C-alpha cells in the first residue's frame, strides 16, 4: 500500500516532466530524475512511448506548400527589408561625409571673419542640441509605450 502511494507520487511528478524529457528541454538534474524513474516504472515508460509515437505521427502529416508565385512575391518583399537597410546606411553615410567636409571647409576658410564663424557655429550647435534632446525624449517614450506592439 505504502509503496503504491510512494510510486504514485513519483509518477505524478515524472508525468509533468515527460514531454520536456522527450523534447530534451529539462535540466540535467530533472532528466536524471526522470530516467531513474522510467527504469523502474512501466506505466510512465508506456506514456513516454506514446508521446514519442504521437510526435512521429504529427511530424509525418504534411500540408500543401505555398504557391511558387506567391512565395516569390513574399520573398521579394522580405528581401526588400535588407535593401531598405542598405539604402538608409548609404544615405546617412553620404550626408555625414558631406556635412563633415562642409564644416571643415567653413572653418579653414580665411576670408570669413571669426565672429561670423562663431555665430554660425552657435546657431547650428543650438539646432543640433534641440534635435538631439527631442530625439532622446521620443526614443524614451517609444520604449515605454505599452501600445507599441499593438500594430502587430
Amino acid at each position, binding site marked *: 500500500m505504502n509503496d503504491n502511494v510512494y510510486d504514485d507520487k513519483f509518477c505524478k511528478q515524472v*508525468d*509533468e*516532466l*515527460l*514531454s*520536456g524529457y522527450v*523534447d530534451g*528541454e529539462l535540466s540535467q538534474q530533472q532528466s536524471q530524475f526522470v530516467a531513474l524513474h522510467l527504469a523502474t516504472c512501466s506505466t510512465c515508460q508506456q*506514456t513516454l512511448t*506514446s*508521446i514519442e*509515437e*504521437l*510526435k*512521429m*505521427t*504529427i*511530424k*509525418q*502529416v*504534411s*500540408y*500543401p*506548400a*505555398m*504557391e511558387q508565385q*506567391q*512565395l516569390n*512575391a*513574399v*520573398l521579394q*518583399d*522580405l*528581401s*526588400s*527589408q*535588407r535593401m*531598405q*537597410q542598405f539604402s538608409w546606411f548609404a544615405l546617412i553615410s553620404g550626408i555625414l561625409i558631406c556635412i563633415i567636409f562642409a564644416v571643415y571647409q567653413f572653418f579653414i576658410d580665411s576670408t570669413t571673419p571669426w565672429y561670423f564663424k562663431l555665430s554660425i557655429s552657435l546657431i547650428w550647435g543650438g539646432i543640433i542640441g534641440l534635435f538631439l534632446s527631442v530625439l532622446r525624449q521620443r526614443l524614451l517614450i*517609444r520604449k515605454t509605450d505599452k501600445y*507599441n*506592439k499593438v*500594430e*502587430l
Partner: protein
Amino acid sequence: MNQALKQITQGAFCFALQLVKQTADAQDVVQEAAAVAIAHPNAPRISSPEFKAWFYRVARNKALDRLRQIKRQSCDEYDEQVELSGDTMQLSMTENGPESSLQQSRLKGQVAKAMEQLSPMQKEVVLLKDFHQFSYQDIAKVLDMPSGSVMSVLHRGRLTLRDLLQQQWKEHNER
C-alpha cells in the same frame, strides 16, 4: 540565406494554413506578415536568429485577425487535403493499425479532427513543437506566453490528443 528565408516563409504559411484552413487565406496572411516585417520599426533583421519566431508571431496574429474577420471558427475541412507523407505511418498506439493508403488518408483526417478538439492554445503549442520543431523558448515568444507554461500546456495537449486518437482508432476498428 535565401534557402533559410524560404523555409521560414513556407513554415509560416503552413502554420497559417493550420489556423485558417484555407490556402488563399493563408497566403494572404503570409503576405500581410511580410508587409509588417518590412515596415515595422521593431522588426528583427531577416538574418538574425530571432526573425523566425517573430515572423511566426506576426503570421499567427494576422491569422487570428483573419479568423475573427471571416468568423470561421467552426473548423471546416482543409480545402486542399492534408496529406500524409512517407510510408512509415505506424499506428502502434493501436493494435491493428491501418496499412493501406486509403486507411492512411483516413488517419490524416482523424489527426486533423482530433487536433480541432484541443483548446486553441494546446493546438498551437503542439503544432509549433511537434510539427514546426520550435524550442519551448521560441514557442513562448510566438504565442506571447510565459516560457514556464509551455511544457505543461504541451503535455496536456499531447495526452488529450493521444487519448482522442486512440478512441477514434478504437471506434474505427470496432466497425
